[in-house]
């Protein structure tokens, strides 16, 4: 029965699905979002936090191009902290505790009130593919929806299997139906999937916690924002608490380790190494006498408290015992136990950088279903998949971010070229150009793309252009502003622990000294500067640029060199089996992955430098 036709269908309304559908609908495409449970839109099934090191960059990059996550996080944050404050601006990160219900309802409200967007409950059982092109989907009730394009953002739901102690059952997340049939349909379309696993800790009742025995971990009352389009604000400050596991905890687990699904063989798939369960930690770090446990609020109006550090899928009754060994949690009551979930994910090397399938036209994949971990990673992919769906339907070139301009570029490039052995999480060390890809310059780096795609308004983009101009002007002015070598100057420098100047110098040069801060300088020499600095962000950018110029310039050289290879495009239909001289294994791999550029080909695991050089010759000669 054909009841309706859409431009785009998004399967799933998690963080990837929300961003994907918003991007498509905002760009004018009739978009249907199908979710198994309409009450779970933008649910945060694990930690109640957004941001953190490496992830902040993803959120801000997304935001710089017109994504939603940053703005919604601003609405729902109940505590923020600046991580890596003592380090340089490139690795500083904002981390916010989020009121989960607040986030869900804000995001759902946004979806519901976006023109062209239809939110609907339904479990997709089948994708319809004809002639190598997606046609639509059908749901469990037998209804078929036709569309020009489909974005799969199914999270952990594909044949999701929950493991809790010795019991196991199919579920997408705890308390939610799984999606049992979609995988078959994806496999039938010729795609390859594998299984990953992830887990979450128990939640306990706040009223049963003795906070007096723990260290309070308040947030910071600093003006901050996850969005370039909201001004900085002071966030609410609902504290977290810190306690530790102890010998009793470890002994209990050790003595009953056979209850652990990792020991019993209930869980055999790979989970994220960055989130080991407490049972695994006790096994792996025998000598560690304690592990930290952060108690984080799940929401403004909820007593549920998240136990960061106590992830486990041991039996529910046993989890209660574990929790009660921890100082301050002696009388704590579990409200919901921790568990592990195992699910199908798509081997992401079957995707192009646009996140469209290489083999099925107009079928896109985004989020955890691509083997990633984390809300921010999911949202970033959702956004890219959404924008590229819209661009494709408009007959335009896709938005391909690069390793050299964004963490999102790194994320997608890694997904396509690396062989995942665990759910992929972003780290700053994954970026070769970390010092250039700073959180605070994401707007300067990327808003052009959001504007070109049509997701940023004229005034938003001109705000960025204006900021850029201010930065350039200020840099220019500072290199011209001379400061005289007199007693006044040198007295001031001495006060800052800086060596005196013998000849007159420029402010630019003074700012190159690590100990000279721009803010202090502006206060001391307001008239000498003679520059009105209205935007403190401009000032920050300029200072960062001057202080770290050597490092930033070196990265720029690296970027230029990389671009030379990146710009050598390879035709998607290139026949690798026609080239003599490269190994069979390499041909097979290249044929499968179909790299879009020579640079990408070179990053594919197992492709030797020799293969690349021969490939280059073949490409050059057509």
């Amino acid at each position: 029965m054909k009841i309706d036709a859409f431009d785009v269908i998004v399967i799933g309304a998690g963080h990837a699905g929300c961003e994907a559908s918003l991007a498509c609908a905002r760009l004018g495409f009739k978009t249907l979002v199908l979710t198994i449970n309409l009450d779970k839109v933008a649910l945060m099934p694990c930690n109640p936090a957004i941001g953190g090191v490496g992830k902040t960059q993803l959120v801000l990059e997304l935001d710089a191009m017109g994504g939603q996550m940053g703005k919604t996080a601003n609405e729902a944050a109940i505590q923020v902290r600046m991580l890596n404050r003592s380090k340089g601006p490139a690795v500083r990160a904002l981390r916010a505790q989020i009121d989960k219900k607040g986030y869900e309802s804000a995001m759902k409200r946004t979806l519901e009130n976006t023109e062209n967007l239809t939110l609907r409950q339904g479990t997709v059982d089948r994708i319809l593919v004809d002639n190598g092109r997606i046609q639509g989907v059908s749901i469990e009730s037998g209804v078929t929806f036709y569309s020009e394009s489909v974005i799969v953002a199914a999270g952990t739901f594909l044949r999701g299997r929950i493991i809790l102690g010795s019991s196991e059952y199919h579920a997408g997340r705890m308390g939610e139906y799984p999606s049992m049939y979609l995988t078959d349909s994806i496999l039938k379309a010729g795609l390859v999937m594998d299984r990953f696993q992830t887990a979450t800790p128990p939640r306990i009742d706040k009223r049963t916690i003795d906070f007096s025995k723990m260290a309070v971990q308040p947030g910071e009352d600093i003006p901050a924002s996850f969005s370039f389009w909201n001004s900085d604000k002071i966030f609410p400050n609902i504290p977290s608490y810190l306690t530790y596991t102890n010998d009793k905890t470890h002994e209990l687990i050790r003595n009953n380790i056979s209850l652990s699904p990792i020991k019993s063989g209930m869980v055999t798939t790979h989970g994220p190494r960055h989130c080991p369960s407490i049972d695994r930690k006790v096994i792996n770090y025998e000598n560690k006498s304690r592990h930290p446990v952060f108690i984080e609020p799940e929401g403004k109006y909820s007593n549920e408290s998240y136990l960061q550090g106590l992830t486990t899928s041991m039996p529910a009754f046993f989890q209660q015992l574990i929790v009660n060994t921890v100082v301050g949690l002696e009388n704590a009551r579990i409200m919901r136990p921790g568990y592990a979930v195992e699910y199908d994910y798509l081997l992401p090397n079957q995707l192009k950088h646009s996140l469209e399938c290489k083999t099925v036209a107009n079928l896109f994949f985004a989020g955890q279903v691509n083997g990633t971990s984390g809300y921010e990673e999911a949202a970033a992919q959702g956004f890219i998949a959404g924008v590229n769906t819209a661009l494709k339907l408009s007959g335009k070139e896709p938005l391909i971010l690069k390793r050299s301009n964004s963490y999102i570029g790194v994320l997608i490039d890694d997904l396509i070229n690396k062989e995942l052995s665990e759910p992929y999480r972003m780290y700053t060390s994954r970026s070769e150009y970390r010092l250039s890809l700073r959180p605070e310059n994401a707007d300067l780096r990327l808003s052009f793309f959001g504007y070109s795609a049509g997701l940023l308004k004229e005034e938003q983009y001109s705000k960025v252009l204006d900021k850029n101009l201010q930065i350039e002007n200020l840099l220019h002015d500072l290199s011209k502003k001379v400061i005289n070598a007199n007693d006044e100057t040198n007295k001031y420098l001495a006060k800052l622990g800086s060596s005196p100047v013998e000849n007159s110098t420029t402010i630019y040069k003074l700012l190159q000294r690590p100990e000279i801060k721009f803010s202090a300088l502006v206060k001391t020499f307001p008239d000498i500067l003679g520059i009105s600095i209205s935007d403190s962000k401009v000032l920050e950018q300029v200072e960062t640029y001057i202080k770290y110029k050597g490092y930033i310039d070196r990265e720029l050289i690296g970027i230029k060199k990389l671009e030379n290879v990146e710009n050598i495009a390879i035709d998607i239909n290139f026949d690798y089996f026609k080239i003599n001289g490269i190994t069979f294994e390499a041909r097979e791999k290249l044929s499968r992955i179909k790299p879009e550029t020579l640079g990408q080909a070179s990053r594919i695991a197992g492709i030797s430098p020799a293969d690349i050089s021969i490939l280059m010759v073949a490409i050059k000669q057509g």
Partner: protein
Amino acid sequence: MNMINNDTICAIGTRTGESAIGIVRLSGNDAIKISEKIFISNNGKPIKEMASYTMAYGYVIDERKEIVDQVIISVMKSPKSYTREDIVEINCHGGIIATKKVMNLCISNGARLSDPGEFTRRAFINGRIDLTQAEAVIEIIRAKTEQSLKIAANNIKGNIKNKLENQRKELLEILIELEASIDFIEEDLEIAPYEDLEKRVQIVYKEIKELVNDEKKGELVKNGIKVAIVGKPNVGKSSLLNAISKKEKAIVTHIPGTTRDAIEEIIYLEGIPVIFIDTAGIRKAKNLIEKIGVKNSLRFIEEAEIPVIVIDASAPLDKYDEEILIKVNLNKAIICFNKIDIANVINKNDFKKKFGENIIVEISAKKGIGIKELEGKIIKKMGSENDFDIQDKIIINIRHKRILVEVISCLKNSIKAMKNKMSEEFPSADLKLAYNLIGEITGESATDEIINGIFEKFCIGK
């Protein structure tokens, strides 16, 4: 990665087995400008005024205006050249040492030592070679790859390779600490104190600097390991050299020295340039016995890193043999008993007792017996555990040295950053670079700095 760079590159391109000439080849925008700086033409005409595909005779001079070598320069102007860039070839006559001096002068005047295969790479990037030609080149590359890879892997022997691998491992350990402190700030990790990490980088810095900075080592880098073949007339020195070079024919260069009365041959053993000095070159002189007096031989022995003493096994030892054996440092030397195909009259047991089993090889240069064994002994000497002197000198080739110099500068930067209490990501930037660079030498690099790495494994064009 210098994929499509237009900087000027240079390399020594010798024509194997063909002539006695060493060629320094420059390619790039500044090829002419750079050669102008070091060349004085006999007819006084500047190079830039020379017509393409013409030659000029003259001298290469160094920065003190001293003559380095007598040369012939040929110019091939863009786009009608192998690389489609300006190419200048400097044909040197002064043997390998002079040729290398000329190349170093090019480098100090702004050229960059080419990466292996870079001339060919430029040729096909600039569209100079078509598919068939390119494939043919690739075939050659392919054929040589296995060999080159093997050479690259063995290029640095034993101790040095271990040293670099260890330093690389140590850098990795340090990087792990630094990166953990950035990406896992929220975890309760026990990161090594910053000062300790700085000290550890200092140690790596010192270790690597020691490998490179020794002036004498630097010379060896440029000039290779010297192996002097000594012995009385007609003992078979030339036959021995022929036997070695015949076996290694593909990579032998004959360069009759003009600076000394001896023949030098460069033979690559496991990728290390070894200069065999055949004192037989003086045989043409009159008063033969006098000229090849022990004194003269000793001079060569002293200069050489490894003296190979050739003794006629078909005849009893004479005074000449004995004198050499007494005076030579047998820790360095290898003793060759030649002509074992004719007769074997010398009691080797006495020798073995006296000098140890390891320094003796029995050969027949004419019949090619024992040559492989001799080479093995030479290689062993170069990388021998007990002879740090030689071994530490084997800093590989110039490319490796260039990389290590870069590594040192990275390490220096990171130490400075740590001293200035810059946060972890800054020293990390330099350390990562250093880590990847060392990997390029030890062959463990898995960086994205691909294309260059690739071509580096293809030891061609040089």
